[in-house]
């Protein structure tokens, strides 16, 4: 594919707002996970909670969209020069020619949950009777308004692959001439649906998650938001680029991965092919690595099938928790940090590798100058996406 320039990118997660906080936490091995202190009924688990969302105030024009998810979107949009980059893109192309493609798994359902908890004779309380927050596209609409954009606007909701797939859909929109640039990203926030939903599937660990560890017991849930501004690459560009994407379906089961990892392999191979690079060219791979018993051994085996022993692959969910629909963008940012600074993170909290782990799965960080980085994001419904990033 024709490379796309990443003019700006940012992520806000439990380790703090913006790219520097993320890079520092990765370098220092400082986890953002804490004992669950979210909501009224608290499961015994650890969460990746973003501090300060309770006091974020949206501007008056955006107040009808007020929700935890949109506050996080707003906070994330305010980091790393993202607003300025969007304004510059508007000046170059016009707001009508810039698409918004954002991913989420639960959008603002936390607000819907709250409305149901406070029903007044079967009706939503007045302060929550706003369609702006009770539909999946709430996020796309909010981001489009918050960014002042007017091009095609789509919310991708394919569970945990959502904000990886936004890169693919935006690339197609730009390639087809429907937009000159795209603001992509994803936001998901902690809510009862995901905490008690994953708990009902018995996938939540009572301890901080330990991806790829032989003794792992499940995932830790987190919340995060992030964005990237994509544009056609220009001659003389320097900087980060999207070089390839691969998408596939497991066609196997709604909530457990394909036992041979066939879908994951297809997505990774497709992303490499689109980028025009070999598996050996990838210097860092950010794994999906949720720390659930089934996911990690299957992903490790798929990685061992495709990549040489020299690959440095890790899961960073020990820092952020599994941020679901935001995992794609947050972990793309981690891949981009590895590409930019040569700092390849290890796998936090993990000590004893699962027998399925090949030499590619690294628990310790390392410094290395790399040319290409990959990010895997796999979701319920067997929905897979792999991305390849490079430098101009």
């Amino acid at each position, binding site marked *: 594919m024709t490379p796309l320039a990443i003019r700006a990118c940012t992520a806000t997660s439990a380790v703090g707002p913006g790219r520097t906080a993320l890079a520092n936490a990765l370098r220092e091995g400082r986890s953002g996970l804490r004992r669950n202190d979210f909501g009224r*009924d608290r499961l015994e688990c650890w969460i990746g909670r973003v501090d300060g969302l309770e006091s974020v105030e949206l501007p008056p024009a955006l107040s009808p969209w007020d929700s935890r998810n949109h506050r996080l979107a707003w906070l994330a949009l305010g980091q790393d020069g993202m607003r300025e980059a969007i304004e510059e893109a508007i000046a170059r192309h016009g*707001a*009508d020619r810039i698409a918004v493609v954002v991913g989420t*798994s639960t959008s603002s*359902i936390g607000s819907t*949950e709250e*409305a*149901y*908890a406070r*029903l007044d004779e*079967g009706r*939503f309380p007045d302060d929550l*009777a706003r*369609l702006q927050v*009770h*539909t*999946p*596209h709430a996020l*796309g*609409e909010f981001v489009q308004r918050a960014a002042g954009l*007017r*091009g*095609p*606007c*789509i*919310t991708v*909701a*394919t*569970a945990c692959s959502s904000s990886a*797939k936004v890169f693919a*859909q935006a690339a*197609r*929109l730009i*390639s*087809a001439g*429907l937009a000159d640039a795209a603001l992509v990203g994803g936001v998901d926030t902690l809510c*009862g*649906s995901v905490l*008690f*939903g994953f*708990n*009902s*599937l*018995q996938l939540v660990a009572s301890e901080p998650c330990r991806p790829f560890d032989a003794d792992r017991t499940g995932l830790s849930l987190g919340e995060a938001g992030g964005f990237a501004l994509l544009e056609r690459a220009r001659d003389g560009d320097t900087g980060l680029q999207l070089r390839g994407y691969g*998408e*596939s*379906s*497991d*066609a*196997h*089961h*709604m*909530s457990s991965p394909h036992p041979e990892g066939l*879908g994951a392999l*297809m997505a990774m191979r497709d992303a490499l092919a689109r980028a025009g690079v070999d598996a050996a060219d990838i210097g860092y791979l950010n794994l999906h690595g949720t720390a659930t018993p089934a996911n990690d051994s299957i992903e490790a085996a798929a990685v061992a099938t495709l990549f040489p022993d020299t690959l440095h692959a890790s899961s960073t969910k020990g820092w952020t928790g599994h941020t679901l629909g935001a995992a794609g963008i947050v972990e793309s940012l981690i891949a981009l940090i590895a590409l930019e600074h040569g700092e390849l993170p290890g796998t936090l909290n993990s000590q004893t590798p699962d027998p399925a782990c090949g030499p590619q799965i690294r628990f310790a960080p390392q410094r290395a100058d790399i040319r290409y980085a990959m990010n895997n994001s796999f*979701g*319920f*419904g*067997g*929905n897979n996406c792999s991305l390849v990033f490079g430098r101009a």
Partner: protein
Amino acid sequence: MNLKARVEGIGFWTRGLPTWALAREYALTGTRPDEAPARPSPQLLPANERRRAPETVAIALEVAMAACEAARRDPASLPSVFTSTHGELGITDYMCTTLAQDARALSPTRFHNSVHNAAAGYWTIGTGAMHPASAISAHTASFAQGLLDALAQLAEGHESVLLVAYDGQATGAIARVAPSEGLLGGALVLSRTGTGARLQARLADVSTSHADGPLSRFTSGNAMAPMLPLFDVLARGEGEARLMAGPAHDLIVEVVRD
């Protein structure tokens, strides 16, 4: 920028008009079948799951399979785009009610069926399609944006793409805030080559006039009703449909007979 496709196969289901042939006949002559099923019965699901599946999953699989059969395409050979404004509001209502009353009693099956890509997941599992499947939402532009992604995939080099659009009945307390009536689904198999009506689409400035045909009036209360102007044009075999595509754009879709 014009995006082009052949419409190789069409699937359609709504209460009272359970196939594309019947919907087309109604659009052209005004005749309606005497009896019609209250619920789709997609053969892709095993019998026990067919009854239990959420309505929006059932209708998505029904129209997707009908479109593939009409196109004589193997469903396993197609990438797919699933679009729905609200997803399964029945499960949203169940999840939020249960969380308010007894959060720890949440059903794991209902939880994994609550994802917006549930229909896409069941489709790929049922057909064995390992090609990419997407699930999107864009308010009243949900259909137009799904169509644009499908056309962009053809432009990128895919031979054929399946587009599936659906919305169901809003139930419980959320119905007042996120209204949607009845059950409506439409599916198109779009191809670069082959036979079938020629379709061209382009973005245009937003307008307030949206044509109102027989199918548009038949199921006007459903959240996916914005797709119906195109199905009215497809029923006639040719013409131009103006679809809502967002705050600044409409999508002009022109259909020409083969």
